[in-house]
């Protein structure tokens, strides 16, 4: 079904106008939507709805004082829709007398309407107007929108300090609006209040690279400075997950430890006492009787107990597989010294040494032993004990360390990022609240796992 006959709806044309003040050519890109248009040569703000283009305001600015990073008239694809940059304004807030400015780009598509991009210090946001009202919590410190909670970031008086292009509203340089930001990275909700009228918008963080790709801009986007209010933290989303994983793996480690104590054979397979005469010169090495290591490949614990008294004994060991001839060579020292000095009694070392050899296959083994000591110190009695498959706790400590170090690092980095974010906020307590919140959730995720 189509309309018959002539209708007033033709094809809207892109219009060229001449500035009534300086004569420069102006292009109207948003068709009949343009309410005001700014001459970028003489900075006259013109009534775009008026065929005579009445001058509404003229403001002082240097030519190309603030060139838009996305030149007006450039088209780019945002979320699958082509938009054209048609308007540009700089807005300025003052905090403790220091001006901070951001830029807003007005984008237009004749079928989809308007949306915005904002840029501050190299940080970008894709902004569209909200179609339903957010729920402001008591005190205004947070609001919720479609189930998502946003935290108050700052409230400021924003002045429109520079304008270019066209706008579907009455734009004026010097106009002031109360701007209020609530963040839930990577999103933010902003309210803008002029008079009684409040407009709500939703922004989503974008990087300069995204913008450069979308609009096919040449060169490099400006490097972002600092952390922006809704910039997603590379870490914070992970912190909770990381700590729940830590909790889970700790639990697993405890279980493994318990299992290893429960299932280990812990079987003594060899014990023999020997004497070493340090006064006898020459080769002292010997081999022990054979013993069998049973079960699966697992560890072997060898304990050397020596009656050393202000003396030492060093033993070169080789654990030799009778069947394959494979030898595991290692050396152990047992030394014990003690005495008295002005501080009282002292001692150093022990008369017992224990070593664990990991992953020894089952089979028939014997030891080759070669003792050494200081010469001419008499006879040293010592005992060699071999145990098969002993439970081991050392892996537990290493495991805990391997878990806690990276998790702690991630948490620290995340807190650091959040600190930088909230340092920019007018809301000093917000960071502390967030910090408490984050640490609380870590505590919860760990204890929650341990309770299971």
């Amino acid at each position, binding site marked *: *079904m189509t309309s018959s*006959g002539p*209708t007033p709806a033709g*094809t809207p044309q892109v219009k060229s106008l001449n500035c009534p003040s300086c004569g420069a050519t102006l292009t109207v890109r948003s068709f009949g*939507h343009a309410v005001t248009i700014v001459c970028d040569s003489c900075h006259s703000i013109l009534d775009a709805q008026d065929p005579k283009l009445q001058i509404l305001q003229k403001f002082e600015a240097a030519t190309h004082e603030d060139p838009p990073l996305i030149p007006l008239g450039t088209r780019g694809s945002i979320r699958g829709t082509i938009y054209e940059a048609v308007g540009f304004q700089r807005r300025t807030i003052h905090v403790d007398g220091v001006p901070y400015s951001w830029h807003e780009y007005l984008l237009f598509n004749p079928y989809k309407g308007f949306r915005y991009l904002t840029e501050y210090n190299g940080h970008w946001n894709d902004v569209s107007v909200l179609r339903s009202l957010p729920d402001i919590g008591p005190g205004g410190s947070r609001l919720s929108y479609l189930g998502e909670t946003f935290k108050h970031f700052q409230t400021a008086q924003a002045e429109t300090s520079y304008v270019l292009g066209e706008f579907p509203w009455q734009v004026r340089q010097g106009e002031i609006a109360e701007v209020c930001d609530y963040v839930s990275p990577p999103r933010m909700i902003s309210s803008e209040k002029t008079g009684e009228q409040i407009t709500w918008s939703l922004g989503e963080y974008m990087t300069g690279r995204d913008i450069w790709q979308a609009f096919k801009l040449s060169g490099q986007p400006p490097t972002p400075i600092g952390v922006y209010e809704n910039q997603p933290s590379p870490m914070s989303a992970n912190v909770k997950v990381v700590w729940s994983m830590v909790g889970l793996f700790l639990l697993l480690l405890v279980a493994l430890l318990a299992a290893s104590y429960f299932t280990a054979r812990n079987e003594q397979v060899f014990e023999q006492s020997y004497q070493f005469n340090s006064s006898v010169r020459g080769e002292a090495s010997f081999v022990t009787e054979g013993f069998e290591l049973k079960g699966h490949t697992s560890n072997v614990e060898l304990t050397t107990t020596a009656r050393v008294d202000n003396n030492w004994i060093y033993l070169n060991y080789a654990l030799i597989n009778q069947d394959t001839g494979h030898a595991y060579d290692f050396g152990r020292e047992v030394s014990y010294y003690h005495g008295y000095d002005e501080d009282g009694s002292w001692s150093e070392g022990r008369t017992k040494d224990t070593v664990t050899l990991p992953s020894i296959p089952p089979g028939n083994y014997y030891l080759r032993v070669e003792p050494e000591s200081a010469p001419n110190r008499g006879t040293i009695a010592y005992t060699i004990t071999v145990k098969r498959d002993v439970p081991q706790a050392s892996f537990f400590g290493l495991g805990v360390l391997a878990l806690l170090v990276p998790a702690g690092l991630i948490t620290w980095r995340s807190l650091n990022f959040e600190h930088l974010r909230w340092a920019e906020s007018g809301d000093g307590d917000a960071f502390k609240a967030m910090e408490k919140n984050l640490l609380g959730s870590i505590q919860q995720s760990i204890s929650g796992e341990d309770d299971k």
Partner: protein
Amino acid sequence: MMPPSANCPNCGAKISFRWSASVQTVCEYCKSILVRTDVDLQKVGQVADLPPDSSPIQIGTEGTYGGHSFVAIGRIIYEYDQGNWNEWHLMMNNGTSGWLSDAQDEYAVTFQAPGRNLPGECSIGQQYSWDKETYTVSTVTKAHYRGVEGELPFQYWDKSEVIFVDLLSHTGKFATIDYSDEVPVLYLGEAVESENLKLKNLRSFEGWS
């Protein structure tokens, strides 16, 4: 009622109605505003040149809303200090009529909701509840009736200044109260994204395809 087709009493052009319940239409040729009576069409006014208009919708645009297809068969154009907007009169395929408002390509579909209690006047921030939904007044717009086109379900041609109150809910519902008559009229509906309306037969724009 008169037959669904007749001639313009002003220029003689053929006038046909798409919707049997239409009360008013505009002659496409001479822009006479014509009102149906029991016997014939009466010219009650003349549409001045319409303002430059950039709605992508036009008479004959088709779409779907709430499981029903619709055709835009008429519109009222309003002008206010921030530009203008269109209220497109939709003929739904279930025989009812609805409204698609298009303010700078922000769309809402509403239906007249008679029988609710309405305030005599409202100001921003006030809350009202209809059909178990709470609405907050978001804008009060003083507008001028700027023109009409096509078929409308009522006579609408001699208005000057009108007041519209828009209300939003927390759930995307939208309400508007039309204070152009002595008795205010409530319309209830929701904000919609144009892609969800599956619009066809839209206008074309120079440089955009």
